[in-house]
């Protein structure tokens, strides 16, 4: 799977050619990552650490644009996103779930439920 001439071995996976995000196949701190799946010759330069299973933006995504994965919209950007940014709860909101922004992006813990 690896061994391309540029020596980049860290990988992420783009499911559909229409996708503007890819899923990390391993934890990566920063730096170049090979995009497997659709459009598999591309490299993306990570601007921040992104964990296995999390998503990286493959293009610049202005605020209010659709985030597309599997070829379908999975949410809307809530800030301006740059290529190589981590895409998650802090910059992407569901189009149906109103609680969507009420969770911590790292732990996933709900921030909108009172415990006192």
């Amino acid at each position: 799977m690896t061994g391309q001439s540029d020596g980049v071995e860290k990988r992420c996976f783009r499911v559909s050619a229409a996708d503007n995000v890819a899923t990390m196949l391993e934890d990566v701190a920063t730096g170049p990552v090979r995009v497997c799946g659709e459009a598999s010759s591309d490299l993306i330069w990570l601007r921040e650490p992104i964990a296995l299973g999390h998503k990286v933006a493959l293009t610049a995504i202005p605020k209010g644009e659709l985030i597309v994965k599997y070829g379908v919209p999975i949410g809307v950007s809530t800030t301006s996103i740059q290529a190589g940014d981590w895409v998650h709860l802090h910059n992407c909101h569901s189009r149906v779930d109103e609680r969507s922004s009420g969770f911590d992006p790292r732990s996933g813990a709900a921030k909108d439920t009172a415990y006192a």
Partner: protein
Amino acid sequence: MPELTWQGYLRKDGRKGIRNLILIVYTVECASFVAHGIGQSEDDVHVIGFPGCYDNAYAIRMMIALITHPNVGACLAVGLGCEYTQPAKLAEAATASGRPADWFYIQQEGGTRLGVSRGKSALQSLREQMAKDSMRVPMSWADLTVGAECGGSDGTSGLSGNPVVGRFFDHLVDKGGTAVFEEVVEMIGLQDVLHSRAANEAVAKELDETYRKAEAYCKAVRQYSVSPGNFAGGLTTIEEKSMGAFAKSGSRAIQGVLRVSQQAPAPGLWLLDSVPDDHFMQFGYTNPNDTEGIMDLISVGAQIVLFVTGRGSVIGSPVAPLIKVTGNSTTFERMREDMDFNAGKVLSGEMTLDQSALNLLALVGEVASGVPSKPEALGHREYFLMYKHQETPSLAAGCHA
């Protein structure tokens, strides 16, 4: 390659099981301690029941569906003595299906110790009758119903775990078997995708209605089927989780929608709808936890259930063995004793989706042949049943036999 066959258990109602279990059923929470006491240190005895004192049509249908499940050969119903649900009626349903059964009230037996001892002697005679009645028959894929559900999903579930199960489902359906997937509330955002998979126009209409009910339900309760663990694992929205979850349905045409406790009227791929129907009390939560979904799949007759979990899970199930699949190699390594199958090799490039699906097929064949799955061997029997309302045809309506 010759088709795999194994020795199963033929029930008098014509159903074929891959295990030969006695099911103890408690009819109220107050009877659950004694029920578990009876089952303690007994091989091939599982315990299920209903905690509520007031009876509920949905729960009673579920208990009868489990009592008459193909993997179950006999039933012992245990009541306290003042609840609405009647253990005698449950035993009667078992007897009517050709399964030996017994029942008693703990109040009449004289309490905890006497109740447990009455139950233990009932088990002894049920075992003797089962041994006398036992009929072993060859079984093959066409006799098998397999359910699939995912829980503890992460960003790998939609890329490896669920697609491998989907490919396995394609094989099972092509071999004449029955495949059931569920979690309609994890199809939010996918109405068109779901519609396009219908076997015919009538089914498409049924799928549309099922989808609309689920969407309205989620809106009404302000809760979508996405959890803190999903977020931590990289899933951002319910729409993203939905696409990943739907991958476990594979690619074959959907034959129709089943309700909880209803058997598939024909082989092929079926969608199970566990979302509560409208009711003046609006009671019943859909997917309150993973175990409920697994019990729903078992209630439609699944002899084996596949559970896809990216983050890892330590649950099992009574009545039908649970096979735990993960698409995350790190999870597989960390929780080796609990995970049955690593689909993560697809992501690392060590294996294609097709190879992985064939390996899963081989594993399901082994478990069907009698090899215990990991949660089964560890003794996991998690179980959950709560009040819910669903308008469902009578149990007899959907019977294979």
